[in-house]
Protein backbone atom coordinates (compact mmCIF):
# COMPACT_ATOMS: atom_id res chain seq x y z
CA UNK A 1 0.00 0.00 0.00
CA UNK A 2 2.77 2.45 0.97
CA UNK A 3 4.83 1.51 -2.11
CA UNK A 4 1.79 2.24 -4.31
CA UNK A 5 1.41 5.60 -2.59
CA UNK A 6 5.06 6.38 -3.28
CA UNK A 7 4.61 5.26 -6.91
CA UNK A 8 1.74 7.76 -7.31
CA UNK A 9 3.76 10.51 -5.59
CA UNK A 10 6.81 9.85 -7.78
CA UNK A 11 4.66 9.89 -10.89
CA UNK A 12 3.02 13.21 -9.89
CA UNK A 13 6.45 14.70 -9.11
CA UNK A 14 7.81 13.49 -12.44
CA UNK A 15 4.87 15.16 -14.17
CA UNK A 16 5.63 18.35 -12.27
CA UNK A 17 9.30 18.07 -13.26
CA UNK A 18 8.29 17.76 -16.91
CA UNK A 19 5.93 20.75 -16.60
CA UNK A 20 8.44 23.34 -15.50
CA UNK A 21 6.26 26.25 -16.53
CA UNK A 22 3.55 25.06 -14.14
CA UNK A 23 6.04 24.75 -11.30
CA UNK A 24 7.60 28.16 -11.95
CA UNK A 25 4.20 29.84 -12.23
CA UNK A 26 2.81 28.19 -9.10
CA UNK A 27 5.91 29.23 -7.14
CA UNK A 28 6.17 32.71 -8.63
CA UNK A 29 2.47 33.56 -8.28
CA UNK A 30 2.46 33.90 -4.45
CA UNK A 31 5.62 36.01 -4.63
CA UNK A 32 4.06 38.35 -7.19
CA UNK A 33 0.79 38.61 -5.24
CA UNK A 34 2.67 39.48 -2.02
CA UNK A 35 4.60 42.15 -3.91
CA UNK A 36 1.28 43.60 -5.12
CA UNK A 37 -0.06 43.47 -1.56
CA UNK A 38 3.00 45.41 -0.47
CA UNK A 39 2.16 48.12 -3.01
CA UNK A 40 -1.49 48.10 -1.88
CA UNK A 41 -0.77 48.23 1.87
CA UNK A 42 1.79 51.02 1.36
CA UNK A 43 -0.96 53.00 -0.31
CA UNK A 44 -3.39 52.69 2.60
CA UNK A 45 -2.86 55.91 4.51
CA UNK A 46 -4.68 55.29 7.76
CA UNK A 47 -3.14 55.38 11.23
CA UNK A 48 -5.62 52.66 12.31
CA UNK A 49 -4.46 50.24 9.64
CA UNK A 50 -1.62 47.96 10.65
CA UNK A 51 -0.44 45.86 7.69
CA UNK A 52 1.29 43.34 9.95
CA UNK A 53 -2.05 42.31 11.41
CA UNK A 54 -3.31 41.34 7.99
CA UNK A 55 -0.40 40.38 5.85
CA UNK A 56 0.56 37.00 7.30
CA UNK A 57 -3.01 35.59 7.26
CA UNK A 58 -3.47 37.07 3.77
CA UNK A 59 -0.28 35.31 2.63
CA UNK A 60 -1.60 32.07 4.16
CA UNK A 61 -4.82 32.64 2.22
CA UNK A 62 -2.85 32.99 -1.03
CA UNK A 63 -1.20 29.60 -0.49
CA UNK A 64 -4.58 28.12 0.51
CA UNK A 65 -6.26 29.45 -2.63
CA UNK A 66 -3.54 28.43 -5.10
CA UNK A 67 -2.96 24.96 -3.70
CA UNK A 68 -6.68 24.20 -3.52
CA UNK A 69 -7.28 25.40 -7.05
CA UNK A 70 -4.30 23.61 -8.62
CA UNK A 71 -5.02 20.33 -6.90
CA UNK A 72 -8.74 20.36 -7.78
CA UNK A 73 -7.98 21.01 -11.44
CA UNK A 74 -5.20 18.42 -11.68
CA UNK A 75 -7.42 15.73 -10.16
CA UNK A 76 -10.31 16.54 -12.50
CA UNK A 77 -7.85 16.40 -15.39
CA UNK A 78 -7.02 12.85 -14.28
CA UNK A 79 -10.71 12.05 -14.51
CA UNK A 80 -11.26 13.61 -17.95
CA UNK A 81 -8.10 11.97 -19.35
CA UNK A 82 -9.46 8.61 -18.04
CA UNK A 83 -6.16 7.98 -16.23
CA UNK A 84 -7.97 7.94 -12.87
CA UNK A 85 -10.24 5.10 -14.05
CA UNK A 86 -7.21 3.34 -15.51
CA UNK A 87 -5.35 3.61 -12.21
CA UNK A 88 -8.26 1.94 -10.42
CA UNK A 89 -8.56 -0.84 -13.01
CA UNK A 90 -4.81 -1.40 -12.73
CA UNK A 91 -5.15 -1.98 -9.02
CA UNK A 92 -4.35 1.37 -7.40
CA UNK A 93 -6.65 2.04 -4.43
CA UNK A 94 -8.26 5.37 -3.65
CA UNK A 95 -6.31 5.68 -0.40
CA UNK A 96 -3.01 5.24 -2.23
CA UNK A 97 -3.97 7.70 -4.97
CA UNK A 98 -5.01 10.38 -2.47
CA UNK A 99 -1.97 9.67 -0.30
CA UNK A 100 0.34 9.93 -3.31
CA UNK A 101 -1.14 13.27 -4.27
CA UNK A 102 -0.84 14.55 -0.70
CA UNK A 103 2.85 13.57 -0.57
CA UNK A 104 3.70 15.10 -3.96
CA UNK A 105 1.77 18.32 -3.56
CA UNK A 106 2.94 18.72 0.04
CA UNK A 107 6.46 19.03 -1.37
CA UNK A 108 5.25 21.75 -3.72
CA UNK A 109 3.37 23.39 -0.82
CA UNK A 110 6.56 23.24 1.26
CA UNK A 111 8.36 25.29 -1.35
CA UNK A 112 5.38 27.60 -1.82
CA UNK A 113 5.13 28.25 1.94
CA UNK A 114 8.85 28.95 2.12
CA UNK A 115 8.70 31.43 -0.76
CA UNK A 116 5.71 33.14 0.85
CA UNK A 117 7.52 33.48 4.15
CA UNK A 118 10.68 34.82 2.51
CA UNK A 119 8.63 37.27 0.45
CA UNK A 120 6.81 38.45 3.59
CA UNK A 121 10.12 38.95 5.33
CA UNK A 122 11.59 40.77 2.35
CA UNK A 123 8.69 43.11 1.62
CA UNK A 124 7.23 43.70 5.08
CA UNK A 125 10.29 43.38 7.38
CA UNK A 126 8.39 41.33 9.92
CA UNK A 127 11.17 41.17 12.52
CA UNK A 128 9.72 38.08 14.20
CA UNK A 129 11.85 35.64 16.15
CA UNK A 130 12.99 32.45 14.44
CA UNK A 131 10.57 30.48 16.61
CA UNK A 132 7.64 32.65 15.51
CA UNK A 133 8.70 32.38 11.87
CA UNK A 134 8.89 28.59 12.14
CA UNK A 135 5.46 28.51 13.79
CA UNK A 136 3.98 30.65 11.01
CA UNK A 137 5.64 28.39 8.46
CA UNK A 138 4.11 25.33 10.11
CA UNK A 139 0.64 26.88 10.05
CA UNK A 140 0.91 27.88 6.38
CA UNK A 141 2.18 24.41 5.49
CA UNK A 142 -0.65 22.70 7.36
CA UNK A 143 -3.13 24.99 5.64
CA UNK A 144 -1.58 24.06 2.29
CA UNK A 145 -1.99 20.34 3.03
CA UNK A 146 -5.64 20.96 3.99
CA UNK A 147 -6.06 22.83 0.71
CA UNK A 148 -4.75 19.79 -1.20
CA UNK A 149 -7.33 17.61 0.58
CA UNK A 150 -10.06 20.16 -0.16
CA UNK A 151 -9.02 20.21 -3.81
CA UNK A 152 -9.23 16.41 -3.99
CA UNK A 153 -12.59 16.41 -2.17
CA UNK A 154 -14.13 19.03 -4.46
CA UNK A 155 -12.79 17.35 -7.60
CA UNK A 156 -14.82 14.26 -6.71
CA UNK A 157 -17.98 16.21 -7.53
CA UNK A 158 -16.82 17.51 -10.90
CA UNK A 159 -16.72 15.52 -14.10
CA UNK A 160 -14.75 18.11 -16.05
CA UNK A 161 -12.62 21.19 -15.48
CA UNK A 162 -15.60 23.49 -16.11
CA UNK A 163 -17.53 21.93 -13.24
CA UNK A 164 -14.70 22.75 -10.82
CA UNK A 165 -15.15 26.48 -11.20
CA UNK A 166 -18.47 26.82 -9.32
CA UNK A 167 -16.77 25.11 -6.36
CA UNK A 168 -13.98 27.68 -6.22
CA UNK A 169 -16.05 30.55 -4.77
CA UNK A 170 -17.96 28.07 -2.60
CA UNK A 171 -14.77 27.27 -0.72
CA UNK A 172 -12.79 30.47 -1.12
CA UNK A 173 -15.39 33.18 -0.45
CA UNK A 174 -16.39 31.88 3.01
CA UNK A 175 -12.65 31.86 3.80
CA UNK A 176 -12.38 35.51 2.82
CA UNK A 177 -15.52 36.79 4.50
CA UNK A 178 -16.09 34.56 7.52
CA UNK A 179 -12.64 33.49 8.72
CA UNK A 180 -11.87 36.75 10.54
CA UNK A 181 -9.41 37.73 7.83
CA UNK A 182 -11.26 40.95 6.97
CA UNK A 183 -14.06 41.27 9.50
CA UNK A 184 -13.77 40.34 13.19
CA UNK A 185 -15.91 37.24 13.62
CA UNK A 186 -17.75 38.63 16.68
CA UNK A 187 -19.48 41.08 14.35
CA UNK A 188 -21.14 38.24 12.46
CA UNK A 189 -24.71 37.32 13.43
CA UNK A 190 -24.85 34.30 15.79
CA UNK A 191 -26.69 32.14 13.28
CA UNK A 192 -23.81 32.60 10.80
CA UNK A 193 -21.05 31.62 13.22
CA UNK A 194 -20.94 28.04 11.90
CA UNK A 195 -19.64 29.45 8.63
CA UNK A 196 -16.56 30.63 10.50
CA UNK A 197 -15.81 27.21 11.94
CA UNK A 198 -16.00 25.39 8.60
CA UNK A 199 -13.32 27.59 7.04
CA UNK A 200 -9.78 26.29 7.64
CA UNK A 201 -8.48 29.83 7.29
CA UNK A 202 -10.20 30.76 10.59
CA UNK A 203 -8.01 28.32 12.52
CA UNK A 204 -4.92 29.41 10.57
CA UNK A 205 -5.62 33.11 11.14
CA UNK A 206 -6.29 32.61 14.85
CA UNK A 207 -3.09 30.56 15.24
CA UNK A 208 -0.99 33.05 13.27
CA UNK A 209 -2.35 35.99 15.31
CA UNK A 210 -1.59 33.97 18.44
CA UNK A 211 2.01 33.38 17.38
CA UNK A 212 2.58 36.98 16.25
CA UNK A 213 1.02 38.55 19.34
CA UNK A 214 -1.90 40.12 17.48
CA UNK A 215 -4.53 38.48 19.71
CA UNK A 216 -5.87 35.18 18.40
CA UNK A 217 -5.21 31.79 19.90
CA UNK A 218 -1.96 29.99 19.03
CA UNK A 219 -3.29 26.67 20.36
CA UNK A 220 -5.82 26.56 17.52
CA UNK A 221 -3.08 25.28 15.19
CA UNK A 222 -4.04 21.85 16.56
CA UNK A 223 -7.38 22.19 14.77
CA UNK A 224 -5.60 22.25 11.41
CA UNK A 225 -4.38 18.63 11.30
CA UNK A 226 -7.77 17.50 12.68
CA UNK A 227 -9.51 19.51 9.96
CA UNK A 228 -7.16 17.92 7.40
CA UNK A 229 -7.96 14.38 8.57
CA UNK A 230 -11.72 15.10 8.38
CA UNK A 231 -11.47 16.48 4.82
CA UNK A 232 -9.19 13.61 3.76
CA UNK A 233 -11.69 11.09 5.10
CA UNK A 234 -14.48 12.84 3.20
CA UNK A 235 -12.33 12.89 0.05
CA UNK A 236 -11.61 9.19 0.47
CA UNK A 237 -15.27 8.23 0.82
CA UNK A 238 -16.46 10.38 -2.06
CA UNK A 239 -13.83 9.20 -4.55
CA UNK A 240 -15.67 6.43 -6.38
CA UNK A 241 -13.79 3.51 -7.86
CA UNK A 242 -16.77 2.38 -9.93
CA UNK A 243 -19.25 4.34 -12.06
Amino acid at each position, binding site marked *: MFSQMIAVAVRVL*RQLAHDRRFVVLSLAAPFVVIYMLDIFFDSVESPLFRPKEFIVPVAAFIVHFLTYLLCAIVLVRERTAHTLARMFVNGYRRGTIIGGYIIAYSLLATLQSLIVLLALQGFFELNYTLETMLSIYGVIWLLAVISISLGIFVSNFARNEGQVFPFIPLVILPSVFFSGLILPIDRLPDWASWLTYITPLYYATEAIHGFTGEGGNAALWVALPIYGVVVLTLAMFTLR*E*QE
Partner: protein
Amino acid sequence: MDNAIEIDGLRKRYGKLEALKGISLHVKRGEIFGLLGANGAGKTTLIKILVGASRYDEGSASVLGLNPMKQAQALRHQIGYMPQAPALYEDLSARENVRFFGRVHQIPNFEARVDEVLDFINLRQRENDSVYGFSGGMKQRVSLGCALVHQPNLLLLDEPTAGIDPKLREAFWAHFRELAAQGVTILVSTHQMDEVLHCDRAAVMREGVVLACDTPRGLLSRGSAHIKIWSDTQVLDETVGNYPERLPQLLQRYHLDPSVNRIEVNEDTLEDIVLSLINDKESAHV
Protein backbone atom coordinates in the same frame (compact mmCIF):
# COMPACT_ATOMS: atom_id res chain seq x y z
CA MET B 1 -13.76 -23.59 -15.41
CA ASP B 2 -13.55 -23.45 -19.22
CA ASN B 3 -14.98 -19.99 -19.53
CA ALA B 4 -12.95 -16.89 -18.75
CA ILE B 5 -16.06 -14.70 -18.91
CA GLU B 6 -19.68 -15.60 -18.21
CA ILE B 7 -22.42 -13.03 -18.50
CA ASP B 8 -26.09 -13.70 -17.94
CA GLY B 9 -28.95 -11.25 -18.40
CA LEU B 10 -26.71 -8.22 -17.81
CA ARG B 11 -28.48 -4.87 -17.67
CA LYS B 12 -27.03 -1.40 -17.21
CA ARG B 13 -28.91 1.89 -17.18
CA TYR B 14 -27.59 5.45 -17.34
CA GLY B 15 -30.64 7.34 -16.10
CA LYS B 16 -33.40 6.65 -18.62
CA LEU B 17 -31.02 5.19 -21.17
CA GLU B 18 -30.66 1.42 -21.03
CA ALA B 19 -27.14 0.79 -22.32
CA LEU B 20 -27.25 -3.00 -21.89
CA LYS B 21 -30.56 -4.81 -22.24
CA GLY B 22 -30.08 -8.22 -20.71
CA ILE B 23 -26.93 -9.47 -22.42
CA SER B 24 -25.82 -13.10 -22.09
CA LEU B 25 -22.43 -14.26 -23.38
CA HIS B 26 -19.52 -16.49 -22.55
CA VAL B 27 -15.88 -16.29 -23.59
CA LYS B 28 -13.76 -19.43 -23.45
CA ARG B 29 -10.28 -19.42 -21.97
CA GLY B 30 -7.58 -18.79 -24.57
CA GLU B 31 -10.11 -17.45 -27.06
CA ILE B 32 -9.97 -14.21 -29.05
CA PHE B 33 -13.51 -12.94 -28.74
CA GLY B 34 -14.69 -9.92 -30.71
CA LEU B 35 -17.40 -7.45 -29.78
CA LEU B 36 -18.65 -5.89 -32.95
CA GLY B 37 -21.01 -2.98 -33.24
CA ALA B 38 -21.44 0.66 -34.14
CA ASN B 39 -20.90 3.47 -31.64
CA GLY B 40 -23.52 3.29 -28.91
CA ALA B 41 -23.93 -0.48 -29.22
CA GLY B 42 -22.88 -0.98 -25.59
CA LYS B 43 -19.40 -2.45 -26.18
CA THR B 44 -17.54 0.02 -23.96
CA THR B 45 -20.18 -0.23 -21.23
CA LEU B 46 -19.84 -4.01 -21.24
CA ILE B 47 -16.03 -3.88 -21.08
CA LYS B 48 -16.12 -1.32 -18.26
CA ILE B 49 -18.38 -3.65 -16.28
CA LEU B 50 -16.10 -6.61 -16.91
CA VAL B 51 -13.00 -4.75 -15.68
CA GLY B 52 -14.83 -3.56 -12.57
CA ALA B 53 -14.87 0.12 -13.57
CA SER B 54 -18.64 0.26 -13.80
CA ARG B 55 -21.49 -1.30 -11.87
CA TYR B 56 -24.37 -3.20 -13.44
CA ASP B 57 -28.03 -3.07 -12.43
CA GLU B 58 -29.26 -6.60 -13.09
CA GLY B 59 -28.01 -10.01 -14.15
CA SER B 60 -24.72 -11.64 -13.34
CA ALA B 61 -21.13 -11.43 -14.55
CA SER B 62 -18.18 -13.63 -13.78
CA VAL B 63 -14.65 -12.83 -14.95
CA LEU B 64 -12.02 -15.50 -14.25
CA GLY B 65 -14.45 -16.85 -11.67
CA LEU B 66 -14.76 -13.50 -9.85
CA ASN B 67 -17.59 -11.01 -9.68
CA PRO B 68 -16.18 -7.82 -11.25
CA MET B 69 -18.49 -5.60 -9.21
CA LYS B 70 -17.80 -7.13 -5.80
CA GLN B 71 -14.34 -8.65 -6.24
CA ALA B 72 -12.82 -5.99 -8.48
CA GLN B 73 -9.64 -5.69 -6.46
CA ALA B 74 -8.84 -9.41 -6.63
CA LEU B 75 -9.58 -9.38 -10.34
CA ARG B 76 -7.46 -6.38 -11.27
CA HIS B 77 -4.10 -8.09 -11.00
CA GLN B 78 -5.23 -10.82 -13.40
CA ILE B 79 -6.61 -8.63 -16.17
CA GLY B 80 -5.16 -6.10 -18.56
CA TYR B 81 -7.35 -3.28 -19.78
CA MET B 82 -6.79 -0.97 -22.69
CA PRO B 83 -9.43 1.76 -22.72
CA GLN B 84 -10.78 3.37 -25.87
CA ALA B 85 -9.02 6.67 -25.14
CA PRO B 86 -5.26 6.19 -24.69
CA ALA B 87 -5.55 7.20 -20.96
CA LEU B 88 -1.86 8.01 -20.62
CA TYR B 89 0.15 10.71 -18.88
CA GLU B 90 1.16 12.69 -21.91
CA ASP B 91 3.83 14.69 -20.11
CA LEU B 92 5.58 11.46 -19.14
CA SER B 93 7.63 9.25 -21.43
CA ALA B 94 6.53 5.89 -22.82
CA ARG B 95 8.79 4.12 -20.31
CA GLU B 96 7.48 6.17 -17.38
CA ASN B 97 3.87 5.35 -18.33
CA VAL B 98 4.54 1.62 -18.63
CA ARG B 99 6.49 1.68 -15.36
CA PHE B 100 3.76 3.55 -13.49
CA PHE B 101 0.92 1.27 -14.55
CA GLY B 102 3.08 -1.80 -13.99
CA ARG B 103 4.46 -0.67 -10.63
CA VAL B 104 1.21 -1.56 -8.84
CA HIS B 105 1.68 -5.25 -9.63
CA GLN B 106 4.27 -7.44 -8.01
CA ILE B 107 6.31 -8.11 -11.13
CA PRO B 108 9.59 -10.01 -10.74
CA ASN B 109 12.54 -8.44 -12.64
CA PHE B 110 10.39 -5.40 -13.21
CA GLU B 111 12.82 -3.31 -15.27
CA ALA B 112 13.61 -6.26 -17.56
CA ARG B 113 9.87 -6.77 -18.08
CA VAL B 114 9.41 -3.07 -18.93
CA ASP B 115 12.23 -3.42 -21.51
CA GLU B 116 10.50 -6.50 -22.92
CA VAL B 117 7.18 -4.65 -23.25
CA LEU B 118 8.83 -1.65 -24.91
CA ASP B 119 10.44 -4.03 -27.39
CA PHE B 120 7.11 -5.76 -27.94
CA ILE B 121 5.32 -2.49 -28.75
CA ASN B 122 8.33 -1.43 -30.81
CA LEU B 123 8.99 1.81 -28.95
CA ARG B 124 12.39 1.10 -27.44
CA GLN B 125 14.00 3.79 -29.59
CA ARG B 126 11.54 6.42 -28.34
CA GLU B 127 11.10 5.13 -24.78
CA ASN B 128 12.31 8.36 -23.15
CA ASP B 129 10.31 10.73 -25.35
CA SER B 130 7.27 12.35 -23.87
CA VAL B 131 4.02 10.73 -25.06
CA TYR B 132 2.67 14.22 -25.87
CA GLY B 133 4.61 14.25 -29.15
CA PHE B 134 3.56 10.74 -30.19
CA SER B 135 1.21 9.94 -33.07
CA GLY B 136 -2.18 8.33 -32.34
CA GLY B 137 -0.81 4.90 -33.25
CA MET B 138 2.20 5.28 -30.97
CA LYS B 139 -0.04 6.30 -28.08
CA GLN B 140 -2.18 3.22 -28.73
CA ARG B 141 0.99 1.12 -28.57
CA VAL B 142 2.01 2.65 -25.25
CA SER B 143 -1.52 2.06 -23.97
CA LEU B 144 -1.30 -1.58 -25.04
CA GLY B 145 2.07 -1.85 -23.29
CA CYS B 146 0.53 -0.56 -20.06
CA ALA B 147 -2.20 -3.21 -20.33
CA LEU B 148 0.31 -6.00 -20.98
CA VAL B 149 3.13 -5.23 -18.59
CA HIS B 150 1.96 -7.53 -15.78
CA GLN B 151 1.32 -10.46 -18.15
CA PRO B 152 -2.40 -10.78 -17.43
CA ASN B 153 -4.44 -13.92 -18.08
CA LEU B 154 -7.22 -11.90 -19.66
CA LEU B 155 -6.91 -8.83 -21.88
CA LEU B 156 -9.89 -6.54 -22.42
CA LEU B 157 -9.20 -4.17 -25.28
CA ASP B 158 -11.66 -1.43 -26.16
CA GLU B 159 -11.25 -0.54 -29.83
CA PRO B 160 -7.47 -0.92 -29.77
CA THR B 161 -7.16 -0.39 -33.51
CA ALA B 162 -9.40 2.67 -33.82
CA GLY B 163 -7.69 5.46 -35.71
CA ILE B 164 -4.51 3.59 -36.57
CA ASP B 165 -3.12 2.79 -39.99
CA PRO B 166 -3.65 -0.64 -41.66
CA LYS B 167 -0.02 -1.69 -41.21
CA LEU B 168 -0.12 -1.10 -37.47
CA ARG B 169 -3.53 -2.79 -37.27
CA GLU B 170 -2.00 -5.91 -38.77
CA ALA B 171 0.89 -5.69 -36.29
CA PHE B 172 -1.59 -5.39 -33.40
CA TRP B 173 -3.52 -8.44 -34.53
CA ALA B 174 -0.29 -10.37 -34.93
CA HIS B 175 0.50 -9.43 -31.28
CA PHE B 176 -2.95 -10.56 -30.16
CA ARG B 177 -2.61 -13.89 -31.94
CA GLU B 178 0.80 -14.35 -30.37
CA LEU B 179 -0.65 -13.70 -26.91
CA ALA B 180 -3.62 -15.99 -27.54
CA ALA B 181 -1.18 -18.72 -28.56
CA GLN B 182 0.42 -18.30 -25.13
CA GLY B 183 -2.99 -18.96 -23.52
CA VAL B 184 -4.12 -15.39 -22.90
CA THR B 185 -7.86 -14.80 -23.33
CA ILE B 186 -8.60 -11.66 -25.33
CA LEU B 187 -11.87 -9.76 -25.48
CA VAL B 188 -11.58 -7.05 -28.11
CA SER B 189 -14.18 -4.57 -29.28
CA THR B 190 -14.16 -3.04 -32.72
CA HIS B 191 -16.43 -1.32 -35.16
CA GLN B 192 -14.34 -2.47 -38.11
CA MET B 193 -16.18 -5.47 -39.51
CA ASP B 194 -13.18 -7.10 -41.20
CA GLU B 195 -11.40 -7.45 -37.85
CA VAL B 196 -13.86 -10.14 -36.81
CA LEU B 197 -12.02 -12.47 -39.16
CA HIS B 198 -9.10 -12.37 -36.70
CA CYS B 199 -11.34 -13.57 -33.85
CA ASP B 200 -12.24 -17.09 -32.84
CA ARG B 201 -15.79 -15.95 -32.14
CA ALA B 202 -17.60 -12.63 -32.16
CA ALA B 203 -20.80 -11.08 -30.90
CA VAL B 204 -22.61 -8.50 -32.99
CA MET B 205 -24.15 -5.84 -30.76
CA ARG B 206 -26.62 -3.07 -31.34
CA GLU B 207 -28.24 -0.75 -28.81
CA GLY B 208 -27.37 -2.93 -25.85
CA VAL B 209 -28.50 -6.21 -27.41
CA VAL B 210 -26.48 -9.12 -28.81
CA LEU B 211 -27.86 -9.76 -32.28
CA ALA B 212 -25.66 -12.75 -33.07
CA CYS B 213 -22.76 -14.63 -31.54
CA ASP B 214 -20.81 -17.00 -33.73
CA THR B 215 -17.50 -17.88 -35.35
CA PRO B 216 -16.50 -15.71 -38.33
CA ARG B 217 -17.37 -18.67 -40.58
CA GLY B 218 -20.74 -19.02 -38.86
CA LEU B 219 -21.44 -15.32 -39.28
CA LEU B 220 -20.44 -15.48 -42.94
CA SER B 221 -22.77 -18.43 -43.50
CA ARG B 222 -25.66 -16.20 -42.46
CA GLY B 223 -25.11 -14.20 -45.61
CA SER B 224 -26.26 -14.96 -49.11
CA ALA B 225 -24.67 -14.96 -52.53
CA HIS B 226 -25.88 -13.18 -55.61
CA ILE B 227 -25.39 -15.48 -58.58
CA LYS B 228 -25.60 -14.35 -62.17
CA ILE B 229 -25.34 -16.90 -64.98
CA TRP B 230 -25.07 -15.73 -68.54
CA SER B 231 -25.90 -18.06 -71.43
CA ASP B 232 -26.28 -17.21 -75.10
CA THR B 233 -30.00 -16.76 -74.68
CA GLN B 234 -30.67 -15.50 -71.17
CA VAL B 235 -29.32 -14.17 -67.91
CA LEU B 236 -30.22 -15.93 -64.69
CA ASP B 237 -29.99 -13.71 -61.63
CA GLU B 238 -30.63 -15.37 -58.26
CA THR B 239 -29.89 -14.67 -54.65
CA VAL B 240 -29.27 -17.81 -52.60
CA GLY B 241 -28.09 -18.69 -49.15
CA ASN B 242 -25.38 -21.33 -48.63
CA TYR B 243 -24.13 -20.97 -52.19
CA PRO B 244 -21.47 -23.70 -52.13
CA GLU B 245 -24.35 -26.23 -51.96
CA ARG B 246 -26.91 -24.28 -53.96
CA LEU B 247 -24.67 -23.43 -56.92
CA PRO B 248 -24.44 -27.03 -58.19
CA GLN B 249 -28.27 -27.24 -58.10
CA LEU B 250 -28.49 -24.11 -60.19
CA LEU B 251 -25.98 -25.47 -62.67
CA GLN B 252 -27.90 -28.77 -62.83
CA ARG B 253 -30.97 -26.75 -63.74
CA TYR B 254 -28.99 -25.76 -66.83
CA HIS B 255 -27.75 -29.36 -67.37
CA LEU B 256 -24.27 -27.84 -67.54
CA ASP B 257 -25.44 -26.14 -70.68
CA PRO B 258 -22.41 -25.49 -72.90
CA SER B 259 -23.93 -22.15 -73.78
CA VAL B 260 -23.26 -20.99 -70.23
CA ASN B 261 -20.36 -18.66 -70.80
CA ARG B 262 -20.01 -16.73 -67.59
CA ILE B 263 -20.85 -17.19 -63.92
CA GLU B 264 -20.51 -14.43 -61.35
CA VAL B 265 -20.88 -15.07 -57.63
CA ASN B 266 -20.97 -12.07 -55.31
CA GLU B 267 -20.96 -13.16 -51.70
CA ASP B 268 -22.21 -10.94 -48.91
CA THR B 269 -19.31 -9.47 -47.01
CA LEU B 270 -19.24 -9.58 -43.25
CA GLU B 271 -20.20 -5.91 -43.33
CA ASP B 272 -23.27 -6.72 -45.46
CA ILE B 273 -24.22 -9.51 -43.05
CA VAL B 274 -23.80 -7.36 -39.96
CA LEU B 275 -25.68 -4.48 -41.55
CA SER B 276 -28.46 -6.85 -42.54
CA LEU B 277 -28.61 -8.17 -38.94
CA ILE B 278 -28.82 -4.61 -37.67
CA ASN B 279 -31.42 -3.62 -40.26
CA ASP B 280 -33.53 -6.67 -39.42
CA LYS B 281 -33.44 -5.52 -35.82
CA GLU B 282 -34.41 -2.01 -36.89
CA SER B 283 -37.35 -3.22 -38.97
CA ALA B 284 -38.45 -5.36 -36.02
CA HIS B 285 -38.63 -2.13 -34.01
CA VAL B 286 -40.88 -0.38 -36.59
